[in-house]
């Protein structure tokens, strides 16, 4: 076991904080991510990470907690994108692109000012690429509460959200406010991005949002199964990333260890690639179908009556 679990792993405070924080943000990202992929809003999700960067950088500059900055940035960004027209498919990319460009420019300024004024180059690294091992343990409950609230919102709007993802016309015809549901989802997405930024950095939070969700969607047939699998993949990926990053302190005596974010993103990417191989997909689909027939057969009397 020592090959994988280096000494002191589970007794280390920062590791435990990182594992708890990582699990929470992985779950929130996975749930929100499945809907993001289904709604083809990955680009919007990515743009929010850039606005979160601006918020995080700005907050550090004025001495406010980066979490507040990340959240504030991405939620304001979501509002701006909604106002410009992220709801209409045609102007969606345009709205996203404009907000993204403006935000990135501001980030550049804030990060520049920070590094020149305080001479701490680490801040740029921390904002962009995360610092899960140096997160203050008191942040975890805040993240957990906000994450739980986000999950509740998604659970409450899941049916209108799914229907309006299938067809906004059909959804409006049933009396749903497609715009309202879309805005609620954008805010949930923004909070998710903000929370993830504190763990693996604003720039890389897209990976945890889209990666596990996209992989899970490839392998499942229902939203519920996609969401559950995405959560499992997200948490597994994050914990494996933390483990490898911790281990990497020991790989080379002179090294400082490699960043967690790097491992998380690499594992996510590898998972997506592997499940994209046709032979792998066929195998999983086959298993699904077999499982499906078995279930259908055993539950046939119930299905006929309920």
């Amino acid at each position, binding site marked *: 076991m020592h090959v994988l679990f280096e000494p002191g792993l589970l007794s280390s405070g920062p590791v435990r904080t990182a594992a708890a924080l990582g699990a929470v943000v992985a779950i929130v990202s996975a749930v929100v991510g499945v809907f993001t992929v289904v709604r083809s809003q990955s680009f919007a999700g990515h743009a929010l990470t850039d606005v979160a960067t601006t918020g995080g950088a700005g907050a550090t500059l004025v001495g406010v907690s980066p979490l507040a900055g990340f959240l504030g940035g991405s939620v304001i960004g979501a509002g701006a994108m909604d106002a410009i027209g992220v709801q209409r498919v045609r102007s969606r990319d345009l709205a996203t692109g404009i907000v993204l460009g403006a935000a990135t420019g501001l980030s550049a300024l804030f990060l520049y000012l920070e590094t020149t004024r305080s001479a701490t180059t680490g801040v740029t690294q921390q904002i962009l690429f995360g610092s899960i091992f140096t997160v203050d343990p008191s942040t975890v409950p805040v993240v957990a509460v906000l994450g739980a609230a986000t999950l509740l919102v998604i659970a409450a709007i899941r*049916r*209108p959200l799914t*229907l309006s993802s*299938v067809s906004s016309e059909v959804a409006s015809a049933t009396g749903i406010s497609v715009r309202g549901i879309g805005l609620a989802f954008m805010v949930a997405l923004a909070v998710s991005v903000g929370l993830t930024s504190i763990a693996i950095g604003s720039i890389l939070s897209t990976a945890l949002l889209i990666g596990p969700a996209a992989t899970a969607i490839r392998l499942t047939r229902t*939203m519920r*199964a996609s969401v559950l699998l995405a959560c499992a993949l997200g948490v597994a990926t994050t914990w494996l990333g933390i483990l490898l990053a911790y281990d990497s302190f020991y790989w080379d005596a002179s090294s400082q260890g490699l960043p967690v974010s790097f491992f998380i993103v690499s594992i996510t990417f590898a998972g997506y690639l592997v499940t994209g191989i046709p032979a792998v997909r066929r195998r999983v689909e086959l298993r699904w179908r077999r499982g499906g027939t078995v279930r259908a057969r055993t539950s046939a009397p119930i299905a006929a009556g*309920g």
Partner: protein
Amino acid sequence: MTATGGDRAAAVPVLEVDGVGLSFSGRTILDDVTFEIRRGEFTGLIGSNGVGKTTLLRIILGLQRPDTGEVRVLGQPLAKRNRSLGYVPQKVELDADVPIRARDLVALGLDGHRLGFARRTREQRDLVEEMLHAVDAEAFADSRIGRLSGGEQQRVLIAYALISKPELLLLDEPLANLDPKSVQEIVALLHRVATDNGVAILLSAHEMNALLPVMDRIVYVTGGRAASGTTEEVVRSEVLSRLYGHHVDVLRLHGRVLVVAEPGGTAADDLPAHATVTVD
């Protein structure tokens, strides 16, 4: 429903479109469109592309407000959320991998407009099975919607719309892009829905021939104006010529109808003047 309620429901038209007009930046989209549909009637909303059929459907659904006129459903002005109307779009654009199965979409017909955490009851799941059976979609009930053919998708969308037990089903070009066999099947299915379940059907199409055997009523639209009545009343040279604003020939060949617009006609039609028009 009480006996008096039932009598009233039978007497009141399911849908009344009364003098509906709409202009858009100076261009007339719809001009004084009037017709009504009764319970269990199969109505074809016929016209070539771009004559305002979709706009008319959107007005009936309450998604767009007309400049003039009124739409009444069961005698009542349009409300924002009208469960008496079922709507079926031409198709839905979803990636093949999107994890929403045919049966999931049908179930959303029951509760897709609801917020909250309620789980579906056994009765609701029964109803989904029943609807899938009614449209003959059991074979692909567990397939993802993005992987269905056009005809299969139509069946599922019809089941989605019917599950809330509407009085009127609105379908926007459901037969476009379907192969001839699927067209036959969908028309037969809708005819069954109208006659067996008493659901009124308003179906838009740019060609009427597949619908001739089942249509109780036709609403023929061109240039934003409409004529309605039985096929025999409406699809005649005098009526359509008046509607088009220039001479139109109506040919009947082997039980099929062919509408031929005069070359060089003066009506503001979206069709090229030399074309053999509209209804093949």
